[in-house]
């Protein structure tokens, strides 16, 4: 694929990069272009929109792991918008992104056994969904199918959007989140949450909140300099 073809796949508007995903190979193809845009500070978030992916993708396991690690640690906000059946590789990718939005026809199919990529499925769920309620445990999710309304209650997704106007709805959502915040502030906030992704929230509290205070102090200093 040429650079021009790669660039066509990625739609960039207002510092937001959108990709319609039907095969994980597409992610591999635009990875380098995406990283260039990030390095040049041209985008604040990357949004993947998928109504299902090709399960017989030619991507080998090593490449998949590389991709998932990229989304685990990407320095900008990553959002996945999922509709219809979300399982296997797409589910794994969704769980690596920062925010998940769902279409009205979403059904999340958890595998019968712990997803192979995670050493501890329950810890990953705890990170993404917060404290268990009295009506379910994380272990009980395995082998189940969760639809969009239930996914919201379980905090698996943040919002249901109308897929007919997907980009418009996502832009509306992002306008609410980001408002007129500058790129520096957004990135510093993302960095804090990425430390929870990286280390998990069961790690020593004093250790994992270090990033929070460092980014807080950085923003406090920067803000005062602007005032001067």
């Amino acid at each position: 694929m040429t650079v021009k073809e790669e660039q066509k796949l990625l739609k960039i508007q207002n510092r937001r990069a959108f990709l319609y995903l039907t095969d994980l190979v597409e992610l591999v193809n635009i990875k380098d272009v995406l990283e260039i845009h990030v390095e040049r500070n041209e985008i604040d978030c990357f949004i993947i929109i998928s109504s299902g992916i090709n399960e017989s993708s030619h991507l080998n396991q090593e490449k998949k792991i590389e991709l998932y690690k990229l989304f685990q640690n990407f320095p900008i906000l990553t959002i996945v918008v999922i509709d219809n059946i979300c399982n296997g590789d797409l589910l794994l990718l969704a769980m690596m992104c920062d925010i998940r939005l769902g279409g009205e026809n979403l059904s999340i199919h958890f595998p019968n056994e712990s997803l192979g990529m995670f050493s501890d499925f329950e810890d990953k769920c705890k990170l993404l969904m917060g404290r268990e309620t009295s009506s379910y445990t994380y272990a009980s999710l395995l082998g189940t199918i969760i639809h969009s309304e239930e996914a919201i209650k379980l905090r698996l997704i943040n919002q249901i959007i109308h897929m007919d106007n997907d980009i418009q709805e996502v832009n509306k959502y992002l306008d609410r989140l980001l408002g007129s915040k500058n790129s520096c502030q957004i990135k510093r906030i993302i960095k804090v949450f990425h430390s929870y992704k990286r280390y998990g929230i069961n790690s020593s509290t004093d250790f994992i909140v270090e990033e929070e205070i460092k980014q807080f102090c950085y923003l406090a200093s920067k803000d005062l300099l602007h005032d001067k």
Partner: protein
Amino acid sequence: MNIKMSKVSYEEKNGLGYILIDDPPANKTSIEFLDEFGVIVREYVTQSNVKGIIITGNGRHFSSGADVDKLKEIYSNQTIIDNNGNVVSYPSRYLRDRSSLHYFTNLNKPVISAINGMCIGSGFEIATSSHIRICGKGSIVGLPESTFGFFPGLSGTLRYTECIGLGKALELVLSGETLFAQQAFEIGLVHGIVEKKDLLKYCEDLINYILERPSIYSKKYIQNYIDEFNQLNK
């Protein structure tokens, strides 16, 4: 025991410890408040034999949060940033303030925040460091710091993530949205909502119910305790 400082007070009564954020009407978590709060925790609460703690605000509100300008001034003057933009040193007071809040999170006795009125910013960070949060009707909670150009700095981002998961926590911290009590309850940030006039009594009765149970208190079963207590009092 009854300790009254200028911005916070502590009282022991019937086996419970009561921490009152006492700088009405706004009950700001000013620098003076944080200093006194730290003293209360270190000198009195840690030495105490009380079986549970209730934290609340004097007057209409729990707390309207920090004095943002003063906080920014202190933190920016005492922060050292290297040429690569990395923070290499931050104010030592942060470690004291953080440990005051973490003390309650890690305590093996029930800690309830009885949230009246506004409870935002570092006020809500105090509440989220508690084990249980009960709101009076009409309360408003949240972490709006991102609307002032920064974000919660006293473990609020972690507490949000622990309560409601990374995606929702990130959404709320980025947007800086505050929530009505009912919204906060629906997403799992608070554990219950009661009539304003019944708030303190409800929290006292709940904590006594938990303490009277035959098993040792565990944060793991908080929702079970609350469900059982509410069922009994229907």
